[in-house]
């Protein structure tokens, strides 16, 4: 019996995974990129790099800035586009039997509708919607920061897509509960949180009698964001009834237990993969050992009991 079997469900749909550990979008590639390091069949799933309608070449200039306990990135959604994903990547995922969430992103509501439609036509089991993208048609304000626009966007995607719909929330808000409520009432099956936090890296040097400044503005991730992620997951769980896939700075068994204690149903691992490419399976093994040593029946049993704490 697989003790790590994970059931992510609401009153309409469910997503069953082999393990609660998922490789986070943007840090795990599209398909079998981590195959050299781990057995991908032991993974809960991978969340693909964010896919847009057309291929994107990403941002110019420096894309990575390391901070004391984290990382700022401004990749700019470089990706192969949905067409190439379907023609080149999907067959690999299918052939190798790798479970995945298709992470999608767009710059207009129509983009997302089209992507949802394509996911539906290709019988993709689960999609994760990155809503931390600027809506080009309404002054580049992010879709995910306003409850009304988020409700609208989620409803439109829901209309076109009948599979398991996960909406990934941005932490760059003062009111996460309204956003979570909007997503739930628009018919999403699950929330994942958090995406990266806005951050600025500054490198200032004095060379001769001149200051040389370099800045990198982008999304902050890694260990330093964990307390923010815990706060957000806790707040979301208190305001909605749908399940939550938690992420943000997870790198140890202790982190998994902390997120479970505030209501997480499964986990995604992002930045930590860069430090230890085996982390998803290492944590799965540690979690299994913890379950066995503490005499829980399985992961679902642990989840139920820790939530009562």
């Amino acid at each position: 019996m697989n003790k790590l079997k994970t059931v992510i469900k609401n009153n309409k749909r469910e997503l069953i995974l082999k393990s609660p550990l998922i490789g986070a979008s943007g840090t795990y590639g599209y398909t079998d990129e981590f195959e050299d390091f781990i057995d991908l069949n032991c993974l809960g799933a991978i969340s693909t790099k964010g896919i847009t309608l057309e291929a994107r070449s990403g941002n110019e200039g420096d894309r990575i800035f390391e901070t004391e306990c984290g990382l700022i990135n401004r990749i700019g959604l470089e990706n192969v586009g949905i067409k190439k994903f379907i023609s080149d990547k999907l067959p690999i995922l299918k052939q190798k039997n790798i479970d995945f969430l298709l992470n999608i992103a767009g710059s207009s509501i129509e983009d997302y509708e089209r992507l949802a439609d394509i996911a539906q036509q290709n019988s993709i089991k689960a999609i994760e919607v990155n809503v931390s993208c600027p809506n080009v048609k309404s002054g580049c304000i992010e879709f995910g920061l306003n409850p009304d626009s988020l409700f609208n966007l989620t409803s439109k995607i829901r209309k076109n897509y009948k599979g398991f719909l996960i909406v990934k929330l941005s932490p760059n808000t003062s009111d996460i509960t309204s956003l979570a409520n909007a997503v739930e009432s628009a018919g999403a099956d699950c929330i994942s949180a958090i995406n990266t936090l806005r951050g600025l890296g500054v490198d200032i040097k004095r060379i001769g009698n001149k200051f040389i400044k370099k800045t990198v503005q982008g999304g902050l991730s890694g260990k330093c964001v964990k307390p923010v992620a815990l706060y957000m997951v806790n707040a979301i769980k208190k305001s909605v009834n749908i399940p939550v896939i938690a992420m943000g700075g997870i790198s140890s068994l202790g982190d998994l237990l902390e997120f479970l204690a505030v209501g997480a149903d499964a986990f995604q691992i992002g930045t930590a993969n860069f430090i230890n490419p085996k982390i998803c399976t290492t944590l799965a093994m540690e979690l299994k050992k913890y379950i066995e040593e503490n005499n829980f029946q399985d992961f679902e049993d642990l989840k139920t009991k820790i939530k009562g704490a």
Partner: protein
Amino acid sequence: MKEYTGKIYNIEKLTHDTTKVVIESALDSAHSGQFISVLCENRTLRRPFSISDFEKIENNKSLLTILVKIKGKGTEFLSNLKINDEISILAPLGNGFSIKEEASLLVGAGIGIAPMLFLKKELNKQNINNYLIAGFRDDKEIIKGYDEVTIGGSVVDRLEDLIKEKNIKIVYACGPEIVLKLIGKLCKKLNIKSQLAMEKVMACGIGVCRGCVIKIKKNETISTASICKDGPVFSGNEIIWEENE
């Protein structure tokens, strides 16, 4: 590519700020131009280093050498390791130089000499005519193993003469981006091939995050390529250089 536990086999100071670190591991093969990434204490990201030498010593056991120039906390950590200390490495990463059987000029600017020493060894093994020129800012920085050295001025100034003198057909180079850019342009002008080992701050080191990309032009189409997986070695004719560098 795999994750290995590497044991420090030897560690030796080469200059005031550069250390030669010899790592024993189960790494099976490596080729010049490839690199490793090392996990450093208290750093979020692994640090990339060119493989400067590689030798199999037994079945399942090999020695690989990196040259580490101190820049910040990661390189300082590595420079202070002791024999028998253990480190986690990902190796071998990237595509190395694609060796051509032609008169070769090797250029190492500063710590860029590291992969050139390994390339020279590989070329010598195959009896390919080669000449390594190194450039350093001053006497204190000198790392040995070259055929010729420029101290102070720019190593690039010597190249055109050398290429003609030695009837060079291909140039391999590693060093700061400004130097590589000049070398790439010079080779284009002289109509000879160049292979340049590029650098950029890396996050994953294995091609998944797209944090280390440059623009390249192949068959008239422009695309992005990751230095860590598609590179770090690129043909000088392919690279589209960023402005103001």
